[in-house]
């Protein structure tokens, strides 16, 4: 026969001081576990959302990122005529982009960060449909004007609307702020590719990547086949979304491994806390347990009851940990991406499934911490325990 759950609830309430120690330990562990995963998740999501299903990114064959790639104007012209590329009002939807880096001070520390500058085609907004100008206007081709992403606007100093900044050898006016939906473009500065390359004394016939808008997501194969078999070209064609997902791997691995180790060590600590609480609960209640056994509750139901109590404590801890981390959701932070050397702002992404995993993690710690005290409770000798003072 099962021991009523209310018995455990009351018992936790009666011994709340010792229960709190275990709850805090478990809450902290779950908090760190979920926070680290949501950080990694957010970093990845920022890069992945930069890509789009129906865009393709073309870089030099073998290039691992845009900065190690180079595509000449002659190749761009060939790419423009390839099949599978959608056409807009002003011709094929193709943006050949020059990627550069500028040292711009971070507002938070005042020290320089590597900000990615992207020279884009005038019709880039038709190709990257998730990017919208939210303040000011788009830059005018041929003028030294730039538009900045919304995170760049708030993270780096001087990138405010109507302000003038030095980039390379020229002065530029910030004429607009764009929202790229939380993607990595939000940390970038965009301008006319011809002028930007000139400001950095780069040849204006040389680009880092070409992004094209496909007629449909399925058109990628057609485009890929046509470009990779063309003997005049040496390029790699990837779906934009896959390219950006790959750019996030190194940082996500770092965060998950560091966080994993910290969470693992803490989990051991939290299990110790739970063990401590449960053992003292059992030790305090020797007579109670013996009385229950004498009343006819079997050994298994005592084990079950104490395990339930441990799970109750760990569940409370898990939920509290999740609630604490939930407040981090959406908080923006920035770091340098190892794979592109550029600074990138991203947000914590606490998703329901991460919270779910957090609670599961808490319950596992509860079982580990509750099992052996529960067994001990059930194996107390009834007669001598009853005689105890």
């Amino acid at each position, binding site marked *: 026969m099962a021991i009523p759950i209310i018995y455990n609830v009351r018992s936790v309430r009666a011994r709340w001081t010792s229960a709190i120690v275990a709850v805090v330990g478990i809450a902290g562990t779950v908090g760190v576990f979920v926070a680290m995963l949501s950080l990694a998740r957010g970093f990845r999501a920022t890069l992945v959302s930069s890509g789009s299903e129906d865009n393709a990114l073309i870089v030099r064959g073998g290039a691992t990122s845009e900065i190690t790639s180079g595509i000449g104007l002659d190749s761009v012209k060939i790419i423009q005529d390839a099949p599978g590329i959608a056409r807009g009002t002003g011709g094929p939807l193709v943006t050949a982009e020059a990627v550069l880096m500028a040292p711009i001070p971070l507002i938070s520390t005042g020290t320089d960060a590597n900000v990615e500058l992207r020279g884009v085609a005038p019709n880039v907004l038709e190709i990257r449909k998730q990017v919208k100008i939210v303040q000011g206007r788009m830059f005018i081709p041929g003028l030294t004007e730039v538009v900045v992403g919304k995170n760049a606007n708030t993270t780096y100093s001087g990138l405010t609307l109507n302000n003038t900044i030095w980039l390379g050898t020229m002065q530029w006016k910030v004429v607009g702020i764009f929202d790229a939906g939380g993607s990595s473009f939000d940390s970038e500065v965009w301008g006319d590719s011809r002028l930007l390359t000139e400001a950095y004394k780069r040849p204006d016939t040389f680009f880092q990547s070409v992004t094209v808008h496909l007629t449909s997501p399925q058109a990628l194969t057609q485009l890929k086949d046509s470009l990779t078999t063309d003997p005049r070209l040496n390029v790699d064609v990837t779906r934009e979304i896959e390219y950006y997902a790959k750019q996030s791997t190194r940082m996500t*691995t770092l965060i998950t491994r560091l966080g994993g*180790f910290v969470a693992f060590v803490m989990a051991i600590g939290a299990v110790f806390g739970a063990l401590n609480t449960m053992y003292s609960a059992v030790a305090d209640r020797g007579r109670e347990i013996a009385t229950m056994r004498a009343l006819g509750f079997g050994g298994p139901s005592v084990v079950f009851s104490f395990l339930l109590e441990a799970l109750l404590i760990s569940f409370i801890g898990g939920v509290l940990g999740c609630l604490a981390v939930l407040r981090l959701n959406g908080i923006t*932070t920035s770091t340098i991406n190892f794979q592109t050397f550029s600074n990138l702002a991203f947000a914590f992404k606490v998703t329901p499934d991460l919270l779910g995993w957090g609670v599961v993690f808490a319950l596992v710690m509860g079982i580990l911490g509750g099992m052996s005290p529960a067994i001990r409770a059930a194996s107390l000798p009834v007669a001598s325990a009853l005689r105890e003072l």
Partner: protein
Amino acid sequence: MKFRSLIFANLFRKKFRLILTVGSFAIALVLFTFLGVVKSAFNRGVEVAGADRLIVVDRVGLMQLMPVSYGDKIRAIPGVKYVTHDHWFGGVYQDEKNFFPQFVIDVENHRQVYPEFIVPDEQWNNFVKDRQGCIAGRRLAERFHWKVGDRIPLKTTIYGAANWEFNLDGIYHTDKEGGDEGQFWLQWKYFDETVPSVIKSTAGWYILKLDSPDDAVRVAKAIDEKFANSSDETKTETESAFAAGFAKQFGNIEFLIMTIGGVVFFTLLLVTGNTMAISVRERTNELAVLKAIGLTDRTVLFLVLAESLVISFIGGVLGLFLAWGAIPAVSAALTGLLPPLLLSKTMLTLGLLFALFIGAASGLLPGIGAMRMRVVNAMRRV
């Protein structure tokens, strides 16, 4: 020490609680040292930077190249002892995952500027003679099981030819604690012959060694003034400022790991301290008896303190021992992502002191309580 057996008897009265408390202490210490070494890994560049070295980069950005002729002009500035220049190579060895930094070095002054990187003379001479030669750090060579004489292929897309092959002529090591043994060096002369004309005769950045570190500010200013209004303006910083600039860009990631870890660490210690305090409070009666039979207040305080110090010491040592064992494994899992994690002696000492401090603090409160209590009241309590 006539009280030794009493202290130990008290320690072992609840063996299981002792194990748990010592265990929690150990865990807290593992966490403490781990966070410490991670923090130092993030800032490794700053820690190992030479005080007498300056870095000169192009003002408009790190990726911008400067003419190689700047070298002689920089050397002409008084206070400059040696000048050398580097390029970032950025090749891929077999797979993108196998990332390691590759520098195109100028063999002429590299050894003078970086005396902490030690290459046996014979190996160095072979490297200088061998156009396609390369030198790898000891840790890097161990990572890929390279030995002198191996052919090492690298793929790159930045510089003309896609496939480069190098002969491993030497392996360098460093005598500086925390020094970087993960670099890969190739010769600038060979590089310069092979790359397309736009990159020929350029340097990625200059590193110079000063006669005296006190000159850093003046020399840096002189260099930047010299190239002001030229086609490539420069930005000169001390090596540590340069490294700090890079480290700061990790910015929030490091900060977040540290805050999260720090909060947890303190919670863990509070919890542990609390457990120890409880175990003293449980024995109020016994302590009152001890006082009743004539022990002084101070002796009672000493007994309580000694007990918590012993626990924290054992826990601390155990934790540091565990950390010492675990950190190389974690470091291996982070190869290519972070510089190697090093557990320094300072860190170990700091950890142990910290453990003892928490031990003393958590014993002090109940200890003082025990010292001050009136025997009559304490005995009356059940």
